[in-house]
């Protein structure tokens, strides 16, 4: 087993080196044979990485503790799903996962005959370079198939905090997003290397980029969900350096998704698009660097400083390479780029949106790196926490929401102001009525009210867009309402999928704004049988029990909950003491209704009769998860449909051949 694992890794290096060389020779000599051989190399590379990946899954699943990795992250008692999920619990496995995903992606690219074109050798070489790097790091620094000197009877076990469904999904989806960014990056660089200045690379990679973005979105939201359930501080986003690292590429890719539309239609903003995708790719490496290097204190601390250096070097190399390619081709890019025609047009509004997203990314980056910057400049480390980010990001996000509200209404090229006013009128009036309603209800907090009003405005605009489309369609086709809505979306999946994503963001914004502004917290020590009220809730502490389960000690409190005087069931916040782990973990008890979560943490106890609780009421947090699901659905709709024009043509040609 040890042999197979290591041979597979070394084969990986050999094959990627060979394919790299074969591609270069093939390109230089313009020789199909060499290129075909490189293609074969990439396919076999995918095969080899699959063997490694399945092997790691196998030894994890069967608890073969003679392997260091297995012994370090699993133990016998662990449920199978978490044994397997330990694949990405540590450095070595994460690297293997990365290389595995990348090799599969590369194989898909070279296999897809439809998109077979002369860019592939360049593209695959850039991907190969990435894989080679990961292989080298694995072999020299973090080999997942390393053996222990003495076979331990049992492993150390997986950190209990990671034993949560969220942790099964969160890392993988983030990796899939990170890895996916390498593809559009490779295409962009390939296009530059070949001096192909059209928007071809964008059309070819639209789906890749969108998929990567989808996974980044899922990864981030599931990460927040996990933190909310598992960490017990009542929040979902702490602006931790590592969270920021995954948020950064999300922001730049969001910008990219919008600005490529302009290049696709108008052939504008080419330098910008190329820079954005390079930036996103570099940020994805930067994220990994942050996680692995431990240069910033973070809850995600993986403390292997060696790995960080590897990543820094590779990141620097790729950055210099990309910048060199862009600079040497700059005149060419410039030559055919077209200027913007009118200030008041979709183009310039998209530009503004891009600008805000990039500014947001910069703000997050700056805040994340500030401890290091201040230490170098002044000698004292100044940590910036949530207050900085909230303060800076709130106006940026507000501007973004506002722009999302007016953007769909501004037409391409040159918008007509009168028509714009007419279509914003109803949404804005409804939003203002909503604001008035909030004030009348006695809701305090001017910033939150402004934020919610803009969110409602944005939501209304998108709803109105759907409404208008459906109405027009029904007039033309006499379809029923549902059918018309369905057909409308189906006929223009990119547009309406995008709108659904925006609506999802509006739903998330409601959750984020209200949970930030109106969340309430209370700490209370109570005796057995004692009740206390908190907002609309009345909680009665019944008893504290202690049980043993699978070697873990569980201390649970039983609390009766009354909501507005009516009984609302019983909850059991717990604290679990693990046999294999030094720290206990809190299992939060949450009661959700449509507008708020009751969030109870069992904090500590003096005796069985006297217990301290932390109780929170978090308004609209469940909306964040719902909005996340909407975003996924919207992205999926945009992804499945929405054939790009180039793809369309090729498809037709193919259809012709087959017929």
């Amino acid at each position, binding site marked *: 087993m040890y042999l197979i694992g290591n041979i597979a890794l070394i084969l990986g290096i050999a094959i990627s080196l060979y394919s790299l060389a074969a591609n270069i020779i093939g390109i230089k000599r313009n020789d199909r044979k060499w290129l075909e051989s490189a293609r074969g190399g990439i396919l076999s590379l995918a095969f080899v990485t699959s063997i490694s990946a399945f092997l790691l899954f196998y030894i994890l699943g069967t608890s073969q503790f003679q392997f260091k990795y297995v012994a370090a992250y699993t133990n016998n008692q662990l449920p199978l799903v978490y044994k397997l999920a330990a694949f990405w619990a540590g450095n070595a496995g994460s690297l293997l996962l990365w290389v595995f995903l990348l090799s599969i992606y590369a194989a898909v690219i070279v296999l897809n005959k439809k998109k077979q074109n002369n860019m592939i050798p360049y593209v695959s070489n850039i991907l190969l370079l990435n894989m080679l790097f990961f292989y080298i790091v694995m072999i020299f620094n973090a080999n997942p198939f390393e053996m222990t000197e003495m076979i331990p009877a049992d492993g150390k076990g997986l950190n209990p905090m990671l034993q949560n469904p969220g942790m099964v999904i969160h890392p993988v989806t983030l990796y899939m997003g990170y890895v996916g960014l390498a593809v559009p990056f490779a295409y962009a660089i390939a296009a530059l290397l070949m001096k192909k200045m059209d928007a071809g690379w964008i059309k070819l990679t639209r789906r890749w980029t969108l998929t990567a973005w989808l996974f980044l979105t899922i990864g981030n939201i599931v990460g927040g969900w996990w933190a909310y359930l598992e960490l017990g501080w009542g929040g979902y986003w702490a602006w931790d350096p590592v969270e920021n690292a995954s948020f950064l590429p999300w922001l730049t890719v969001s910008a990219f998704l919008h600005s490529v539309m302009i290049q696709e239609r108008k052939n504008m903003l080419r330098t910008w698009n190329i820079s954005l995708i390079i930036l996103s790719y570099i940020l994805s490496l930067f994220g990994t660097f942050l996680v692995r290097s431990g240069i910033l204190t973070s809850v995600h601390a993986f403390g292997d400083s060696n790995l960080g250096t590897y990543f820094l070097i590779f990141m620097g190399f790729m950055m210099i390479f990309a910048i060199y390619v862009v600079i040497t081709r700059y005149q060419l890019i410039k030559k055919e780029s077209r200027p913007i025609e009118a200030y008041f047009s979709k183009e310039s509004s998209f530009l503004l949106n891009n600008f805000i997203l990039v500014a947001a990314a910069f703000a997050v980056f700056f805040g994340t790196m500030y401890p290091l910057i201040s230490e170098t400049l002044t000698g004292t480390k100044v940590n910036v926490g949530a207050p900085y980010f909230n303060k800076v990001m709130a106006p940026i996000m507000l501007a973004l929401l506002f722009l999302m509200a007016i953007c769909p209404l501004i037409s391409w090229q040159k918008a007509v102001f009168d028509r714009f006013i007419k279509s914003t009128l109803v949404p804005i009036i409804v939003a203002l009525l909503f604001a008035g309603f909030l004030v009348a209800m006695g809701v305090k907090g001017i910033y939150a009210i402004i934020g919610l009003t803009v969110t409602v405005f944005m939501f209304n605009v998108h709803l109105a867009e759907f409404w208008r489309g459906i109405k027009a369609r029904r007039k033309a086709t006499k379809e029923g309402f549902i059918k018309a809505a369905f057909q409308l979306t189906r006929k223009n999946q990119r547009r309406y999928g995008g709108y659904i994503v925006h609506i999802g963001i509006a739903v998330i914004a409601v959750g984020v704004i209200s949970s930030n502004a109106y969340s309430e917290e209370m700490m209370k020590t109570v005796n057995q049988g004692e009740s206390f009220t908190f907002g609309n809730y009345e909680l009665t502490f019944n008893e504290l029990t202690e049980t043993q389960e699978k070697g873990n000690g569980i201390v649970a409190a039983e609390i009766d909950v009354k909501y507005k005087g009516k009984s609302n069931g019983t909850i059991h916040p717990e604290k679990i003491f693990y046999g294999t782990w030094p720290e*206990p973990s809190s299992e939060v008890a949450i009661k959700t209704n449509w507008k708020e979560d009751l969030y109870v943490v069992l904090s500590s106890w003096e005796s069985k009769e006297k217990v301290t609780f932390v109780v929170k009421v978090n308004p609209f947090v469940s909306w964040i998860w719902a909005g996340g699901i909407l975003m996924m659905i919207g992205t999926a709709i945009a992804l499945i449909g929405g054939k790009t024009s180039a793809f369309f043509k090729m498809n037709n040609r193919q259809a012709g051949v087959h017929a």
Partner: protein
Amino acid sequence: MSKNKKIIFGLSLFAVAIMIMFFSTMPSAGSKEISIEELLTKNYKDEYVLTQGLLKEDSVKWDADKIELTFEIVDEESSSPLPIIYKGVKPDNFSEDVIVIVEGFIKDNGVFEAEKVQTKCPSKYEGEDPENYDAEMHKNMNEKKQNE
């Protein structure tokens, strides 16, 4: 001036505005990282600071009724421990060998009033001890404690 240039000009003005916002928010929203020794000897009154040290377990007093936690932290360089008061709940694993990170203000009486207390265990997410954790120092600390 072409429209492109005008737009770029407008955007850069906007960028400058945002920059100013960043820098003006920074000092008020950040916390300076100061060592215990510096905090004990120099004047950091009215400044929001962050410091960290090892928990002295015998100093922990937890008043459940008032929800008030008092404890002391030390590190290798500090001549005497730093007393801390925190109006909040006791973190999990608030026991020996844990690194405590506190944020807050130092008061006139030399007591640090913490607004945030976090514990850092060397093995937070990893199965193994990370390399940057100084196990040696921790051991020395414990030995010193026993000698006293």
